């Protein structure tokens, strides 16, 4: 078995093989099958495509790929055929899959459901472009180019460079797009100190939320006392609505491994661990495959690339506690102990896992490393703002037209992300706030939408970068209720060790719940602020230290909503059930009986063609009548 790569020539050979796999001489179909794709039915589409290909006897290469980011339009299916541009089909279902194959069998381009076309591919690491050679008369002139779509054109995909472009199970396809060339470069051309120097100069900061300069962390760990050192990849992504790390692991696992191996070389680490949450089974499968392949080819394990450098990586599955994303809790859990944080007066780079120097970075951070080594710190540090370099992946979810994963240069404004990339708010509703930084981030109001997104700016307005979750809220969102929701999440996810965090969050949640029930009292806002300050200042870890953010920012920017709940016993967004009533406008009601039939409580009375009435004592305020009325006769107040 002479599979092991020991020279640049070996890598080049595999790259050739990979290019043939990426762009075969025959038709190739790729289905986006990351978890987001699977959730919208990609597996079914894949099976039908497979079945139809067999039926028609077409010579087609069919494989899965990761998430391209445009999750709103999934399932996405790509057709790459010599002579055609790459065509991306959107919202594909079984029927569409059949039609697609039918047309292919006849040698025709199926022209429905096309999201966009791609005329070229960019190999970011190699700074190369691969043009698709196609006949300009394919009749696709009216179809937009993917890179010019409003959703895409402001993006710059560094960490997610390969997601949606390669088969995540294929090592050679990863190599074809420049993968493992950075590792080769680092191990053969750079001294460990030089790698660290390059990362420091790039300005890369931890993408897990803290924003600590990555190169400096590596430097401290390299110079910490101890023979045995570890590197860890934090893949315990737990913010509700955030899934960028999952997407990278599922779509491009080798990018994370390569980053870790380069980091281990720079730090002088003996072993690596990936702490990935059990809720990411597909990511675990992809990682296992990738580790096995990398070991087979001499890219991981013993004598990496024939240089004598040894470094194995192990996978450890987390049990599903949010707090285990915190570095010391994660390490405790890795050691087999209860996942709770400890005081970090002695840093983990000096005494971390098993009390040995340990360097921990998250998935996205690691995925950036190979690009920095390949393109250089000078190139990387030109992207972004003065203090926040490079790009950040955000998952935009909530009341937004284009739900998805976007990677944008730091410094882009929230407005650009929400209105240009995200396509604005659905249903012509008004934007109200965006929650950045996960459950313990803050809600940023409309007046601050022109804020450039970077670590410092978000902190200044009371929110944070966090791991990059962005939840968009429209006018129908009650900000007190939102604060209550996030606090209830945090109450369950606090480890419970510190009195201030455990008891403080509980008490804040009790007050917020009271307010949403119309039982708010004078002084509640002040008590919430008092609790917030103490919970922030006296909790051990960042969970407690940031937990009050949703409360503080909603009070800061939407104080009038709190006051309306407390003083007027009204919910301006008409969300809090105890504070709203449903009535029927007799002028508008046609007596169609529709709401009357739908009401689960039989709380609506009336006769045919005569105005109906809601019996308030029976009404549970479920809103079904409001949804079903076709004449706008049901009013919420």
């Amino acid at each position, binding site marked *: 078995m002479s599979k092991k790569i020991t020279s640049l020539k070996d890598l080049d050979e595999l790259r050739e093989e990979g290019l043939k796999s990426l762009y075969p001489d025959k038709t190739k179909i790729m289905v986006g099958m990351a978890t987001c794709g699977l959730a919208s039915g990609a597996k079914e589409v894949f099976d039908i495509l497979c079945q139809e290909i067999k039926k028609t006897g077409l010579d087609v290469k069919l494989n899965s790929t990761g998430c391209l980011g445009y999750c709103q339009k999934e399932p996405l299916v790509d057709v790459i055929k010599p002579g055609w541009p790459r065509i991306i089909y959107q919202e594909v279902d079984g029927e569409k899959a059949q039609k697609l194959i039918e047309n292919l069998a006849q040698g025709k381009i199926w022209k429905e459901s096309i999201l966009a076309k791609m005329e070229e591919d960019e190999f970011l690491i190699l700074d190369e472009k691969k043009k698709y050679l196609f006949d300009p008369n394919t009749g696709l002139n009216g179809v937009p180019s993917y890179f010019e779509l409003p959703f895409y054109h402001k993006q710059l995909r560094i960490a997610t460079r390969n997601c949606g472009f390669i088969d995540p199970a294929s090592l050679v396809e990863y190599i074809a797009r420049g993968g493992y060339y950075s590792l080769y470069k680092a191990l053969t051309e750079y001294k460990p100190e030089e790698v660290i120097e390059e990362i420091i100069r790039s300005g890369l900061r931890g993408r897990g939320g803290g924003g600590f300069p990555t190169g400096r962390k590596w430097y401290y760990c390299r110079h910490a006392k101890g023979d045995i050192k570890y590197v860890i990849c934090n893949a315990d992504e737990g913010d509700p609505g955030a899934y960028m790390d999952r997407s990278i692991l599922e779509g491009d696992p080798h990018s994370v491994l390569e980053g870790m191996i380069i980091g281990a070389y720079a730090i002088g680490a003996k072993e690596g661990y990936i702490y990935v949450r059990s809720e990411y089974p597909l990511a675990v499968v992809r990682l296992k495959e990738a580790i096995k392949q990398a070991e087979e080819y001499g890219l991981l394990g013993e004598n990496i690339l024939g240089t004598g450098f040894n470094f194995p990586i192990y996978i450890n599955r987390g049990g599903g506690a949010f707090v285990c994303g915190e570095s010391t809790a994660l390490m405790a859990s890795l050691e087999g102990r209860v996942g709770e944080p400890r005081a970090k007066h002695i840093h983990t780079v000096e005494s971390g896992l098993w009390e040995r120097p340990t360097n921990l970075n998250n998935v996205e951070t690691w995925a950036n490393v190979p690009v920095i080594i390949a393109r250089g710190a000078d190139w990387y540090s030109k992207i972004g703002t003065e203090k926040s370099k490079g790009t950040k992946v955000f998952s935009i979810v909530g009341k937004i037209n284009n739900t998805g994963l976007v990677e944008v240069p730091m410094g882009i404004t929230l407005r650009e992300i929400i209105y240009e990339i995200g396509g604005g708010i659905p249903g012509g509703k008004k934007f109200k706030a965006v929650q950045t930084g996960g459950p313990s981030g803050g809600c940023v109001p409309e007046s601050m939408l022109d804020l450039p997104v970077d670590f410092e700016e978000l902190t200044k307005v009371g929110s944070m970068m966090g791991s990059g979750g962005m939840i968009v809220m429209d006018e129908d969102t009650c900000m007190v209720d939102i604060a209550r929701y996030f606090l209830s999440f945090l109450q369950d996810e606090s*480890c419970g060790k510190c009195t*201030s965090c455990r008891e403080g969050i509980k008490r804040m949640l009790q007050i917020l719940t009271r307010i949403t029930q119309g039982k708010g009292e004078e002084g509640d806002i002040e008590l919430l602020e008092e609790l917030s300050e103490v919970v922030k*200042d006296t909790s051990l870890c960042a969970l407690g230290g940031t937990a009050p953010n949703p409360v503080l920012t909603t009070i800061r920017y939407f104080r009038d909503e709190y006051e309306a709940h407390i003083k007027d016993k009204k919910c301006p967004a008409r969300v809090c059930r105890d504070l709203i009533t449903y009535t029927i406008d007799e002028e508008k009601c046609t007596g169609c009986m529709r709401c009357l039939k739908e009401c689960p409580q039989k709380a609506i009375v009336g006769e045919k063609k005569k105005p109906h009435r809601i019996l308030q004592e029976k009404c549970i305020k479920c809103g079904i009548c409001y949804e079903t009325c076709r004449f706008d006769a049901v009013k919420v107040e």
Partner: protein
Amino acid sequence: MVKLVIDGKQVEVEKGLSVLEAAQKIGVEIPTLCYHPAVSAYGACRICTVEVIRKGWSRLTAACTYPVQEGIEVKTNSDKVKKARKLIMEMLLARCPNVKAIQDLAKKMGVEKTRFPEENEECILCGLCVRVCQEVIGVSAIGFVNRGIERKVTVPFEVQSDKCIGCGACAIVCPTGAIKIEDIEDKRRIDIWHTELERAKCKVCGRYFSPMATIDYLEKKGIEKIQEFLNLCPDCKRDVLINKLNKVNYSSSPVKFSNF
């Protein structure tokens, strides 16, 4: 040695001490509920919160887990500290309104009543019992389970654990009296740990005393000096010791043993 300032006083203490221990050394009292010199510091109750100023940066931190560092300034009684401690105490009082130790400490800190709905817990989750069981006794029969507001200390699967030797160290260190031990004839019951153990009979007087599991455990530990006393109740142990001492010729000793 490390030089630091505590409440304006320049002090010098051994390296490795915590700010809490350093303060105790110079007679500055910092209230705490989860610290005990016999076990490692944990930092759970946060009552020992102090203000530490390091390199010009001020922050609140738990004194029990903060190691003394050269040049830091510690304020144990600033307005910020008092405000934080009082609110934490108020929350503990709301959790355990009927626990005397909590009532007393609250009163001492100027917290007369709580603004939060009262619960009726006895345990403050300080974790002293867990640490003493693991670090001092060495059996780890109990531990924390669940998280957040569901957190509690218990035995695995909430059934009697064969690891618990019934020594009662947990009850002794518990600051709130939440762990109750009942000795009824030949049985020792620790209901909170779902545990019931057989007690041994004193081989001299025949009365029941320690649980057999404790004696077995100590026997296995093989500490020579105590082996001959293991099967004796505390009273008989004392008698045996006195007899032993009386047999010694003390004529040349300046110490009088008449008190025995």
